Every structure is written in C-alpha cells, then in structure tokens.
C-alpha cells in the first residue's frame, strides 16, 4: 500500500515533467521554422495536446490497455468505463494521466516534419487518427499485452519504438505525401531554409531534456526499482554524448560546429536511449548516445539531399532513425540478454521483428490516413498561402507584431 502511494506519487510527478515536453516541442518547432508560420505551429501543438488527451480518453486508452483480443487490440474501457482502481501498482488515474500525456507526443513528432505547408485542419484530422488508432494499436502490441511483447518478446522500455519510431515513420510518410516546401529544392539541389529563432529552439531542446527525465525514469512506474535511477543517469549521459558527437562531426564535415545539428544531437541521444534506458549500462549509454548523434546527422543529410524529403526540424532523423537504432541497440547492449552480454541473437531478433512490424504498420496506417485526408479536405495549403505564410491565411494573425 505504501509502495503504491509512493509509486503513484512518482508517476504523477513524472507525468507533469512529461507534460512540459509539449512546451519543448512547440519551441523547437517554432524556432527551427520560419516566423511566418509560427502561429500555425503553436496552434498545432495546442491542438495536439488537447485532441491527444481527449481522443485517448475516449478511444485510445481502451484500444491500448483494454482487455486484449488475440494479442491484437484492447477491447473495453472506452471512455475509461469499467476501469480498475489501480494498474501496474499505481493508481489508475495516474496511470491514465501518464499514458494520455505520452499519447500526444507521437502526433507532435509528425507536426514538425510537415510544418510550413500542411493545412491546419488536415493535421488536426491526422492527429485524431494518430491518437485514437495508430499509437494505441501499436502501443497495445508493445505495452498493452499484445503479441509483440507477449509472443515476440520485444522490449521497448519507454517508447523508443512505441512513441519515437512510430512518430518518426508517420512523419516520413507525411513529409513525402505533402511534398517539400516551395523553394526547398531547385533542380534537385536542396536549399537551406533556416529557422528563425535559434534561442527559442534551444530553450525547447532543454525543456524536452528536462521532460525526458519524466519520460524515461517515469516509465518504470516504480520508484523503488533501481532501474528508475539508472534510467535517469543513462538519459543524462546519452544526451550529453550525442550532443558532443553531433557537434564534433558537424565541425569536421562543415568546418563549424553547427547549432541546429548540435541541438538535434541532444534530442537524438535522448531518443536513442529511450528504448533501453533501464537496461543499458552507463558506458553503453554513452555509446548509444554518440552513435545516435552521428546517425542523426548522417540521416539528416541523406534524407535532405539524397531522398529529397523535406523535414524542416529533422523529426524523421531524430525520432525515426534514432528510435529504431535505440531499439535495436537493446538487443545488443541490454545487460539482461543482449548480444554482448551473452544473450545470443534471441533478443536482437525480437527487436528486429518488433521494430520492423511497428514501423511498417505505422507507415501503412499513416499512408491510408493521409490518402483519406488528401482525397477529402486536401493536405497542402495553396502555393500563395505558403508563400505568404500560414499564419495570416489560416489564423489571421502574425506571430510577431509591432504595430
């Protein structure tokens, strides 16, 4: 009983930390895009939080944590009806609180990659689907008793796949389908469209890092477990290692320590360690971080110049690529069953299968959703609207005014 109160308290506090991540996402996305679209991005973030929470309340939670049907989907507790008093050793209310705030994160990732050219209400529609279907479905397989955890033996501690890879791969599909921003490519050569407020973006990254200390350590749901403190430290040092790695590599490749990539580096390290923050050693966390920073940087370049997919904030590389990498790294570096710790290929195989299925399904569902949206309300704003900025036309107001 005492432990339950303790854990309830811990998860409640961790949830509040995670909540602030929405401010972090908002600032990162605003900072790394153009000022003429800043209001639009702000609005998307508010809508994501709100719809995410409500959609998860009405439908999402039920599909994710309702009584399992054939390992595929949850089937009751819609509108939280018939939910128990406690789950996983903490109060049900707090469990829901934590999960609901998580749910919104997944959609937010997509908003960054599709920024500056997507219709407001089209994004809103995607956001509804993401938080009521895509995230809960895959989440059920991973965390809700579905087949990925129960049959495949897939492990995803705090959402390296369930949140980040899923979000990142939805973002990939979204960015492809909405197409690059006007002027991004000229004869196939990418142009830089610099963000308009680096300090705000940096504030966002630090706020996200702060929130991640709820996201990862909170995911144990158990303050009495040593894994909680362990996860806090791995989150700290993986982020640090990735920051330094990205900074050094950008300096080597481009002659200067690049601010955008260094900031993304921090996020890459945080995403990278998410899947295994509780079971990768400190040294392993530094390795995961450093590799995440490098991978992210290479992915940003590859996606931008080779694949020619326009991702203004680097969401695909940060969340998609590093989410996958981090999930696979568990198979190698987990102190409990990882390849390097004598666990053989079993865990690594499970990880490969799990992340493969999750990413594929996420892409498939995102594709269907965007096809539906495109066919009905359309996906992309008018060219002239894009040119003048979404703020004036979609919201009738500029972000910065002095008149």
């Amino acid at each position, binding site marked *: 009983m005492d432990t339950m109160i303790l854990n309830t308290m811990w998860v409640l506090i961790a949830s509040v930390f995670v909540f602030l991540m929405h401010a972090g996402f908002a600032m990162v996305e605003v900072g790394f895009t153009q000022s003429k679209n800043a209001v639009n991005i702000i609005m998307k973030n508010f809508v994501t939080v709100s719809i995410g929470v409500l959609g998860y309340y009405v439908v999402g939670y039920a599909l994710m944590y309702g009584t399992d049907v054939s390992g595929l989907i949850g089937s009751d507790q819609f509108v939280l009806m018939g939910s128990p008093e406690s789950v996983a050793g903490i109060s049900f209310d707090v469990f829901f609180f934590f999960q609901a705030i998580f749910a919104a994160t997944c959609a937010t990732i997509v908003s960054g990659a599709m920024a500056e050219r997507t219709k407001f209400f089209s994004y809103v529609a995607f956001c509804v689907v993401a938080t009521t279907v895509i995230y809960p479905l895959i989440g059920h397989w991973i965390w809700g008793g579905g087949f990925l955890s129960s049959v495949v033996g897939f492990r995803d501690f705090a959402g390296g796949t369930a949140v980040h890879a899923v979000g990142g791969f939805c973002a990939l599909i979204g960015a492809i389908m909405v197409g690059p921003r006007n002027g991004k490519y000229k004869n196939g050569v990418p142009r830089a469209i610099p963000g308009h407020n680096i300090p705000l973006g940096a504030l966002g990254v630090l706020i996200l890092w702060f929130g991640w200390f709820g996201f990862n350590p909170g995911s144990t749901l158990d303050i009495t477990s040593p894994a909680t403190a362990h996860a806090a430290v791995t989150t700290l040092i993986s982020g640090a290692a990735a920051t330094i790695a990205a900074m050094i590599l950008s300096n080597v490749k481009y002659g200067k320590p690049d601010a955008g990539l260094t900031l993304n580096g921090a996020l890459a390290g945080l995403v990278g360690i998410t899947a295994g923050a509780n079971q990768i050693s400190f040294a392993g966390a530094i390795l995961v971080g450093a590799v995440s920073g490098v991978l992210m940087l290479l992915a940003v370049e590859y996606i931008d110049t080779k694949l020619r997919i326009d991702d203004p904030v680097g969401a695909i590389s940060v969340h998609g690529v590093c989410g996958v990498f981090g999930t696979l790294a568990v198979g190698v570096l987990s102190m409990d069953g990882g390849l390097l710790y004598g666990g053989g290929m079993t865990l690594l195989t499970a990880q490969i299968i799990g992340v493969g299925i999750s990413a594929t399904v996420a892409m498939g569902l995102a594709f269907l959703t965007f096809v539906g949206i495109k066919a009905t309300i359309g996906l992309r704003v008018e060219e002239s609207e894009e040119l*003048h900025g979404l703020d004036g036309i979609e919201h*009738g107001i500029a972000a910065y005014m002095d008149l």
Partner: protein
Amino acid sequence: MVEKMSKIEIIMNPDKFEDLKEAMNGIGVTGMTVTNALGCGLQKGHKEYYRGVQVEINLKQKLKVEIVVCEVPVETAIQTALKILQTGNIGDGKIFVYDVVDAVRIRTAERGPAAVKDPK
C-alpha cells in the same frame, strides 16, 4: 560623375528572395541592402479578426530590396526582377526607381560610380 546612378527599390514577397538574389548576381549587380517591411496595397479591404475584434487592413510581410546600379542598366534590373517576381497575383509588389546623387565605398573612399562597380 558622368554615369548616372539609380536606386532600384523592390517591394516583394519574402519567399522569392533567394531567386532574386541569384538573378541579380547573374546580371552583375554587386550588392544590395534588404530590409523587412510591412506593406499594404491593393490587398486592402481584407478583414481579419484578432480575439474577436475586426482588424481591417492587414499589413503583409514584405522585403524591401535596395539596389544601387550604374553599369547595369536600370531596365535590365527591372526586367530581371519582373521575370522572377511576377505571378499575376495581387501582392506581387512594386518597384520604384530613384536618382542617386553620389555614392561612397567606405572601405576605399572611392566616390561615384566607382564606388558601386566591382573593383575586381
């Protein structure tokens, strides 16, 4: 000061700036000065709301690009700008041309057309 100098002032949409810059470099323009501006023109009458209150004429974000030329004929510059900027939509912008009496390159204290020409 035999060669006349002129200032070409282009009020334009921010998004085409990269293209314009390239095109201007292409015709030998050696420099330009750019300012953020807010413009209202025939786009007026457009009604907006801010917290439920009508805001009547909305100022649109524009760039003001100033280019002082002497060698490059004014007409070439205008035609180049038109080629890049004309979309046929309201809000495309305006170009104004002014006389320049004198110019100084601060670095070398050169005066007149020499101050604007490429020294290379």
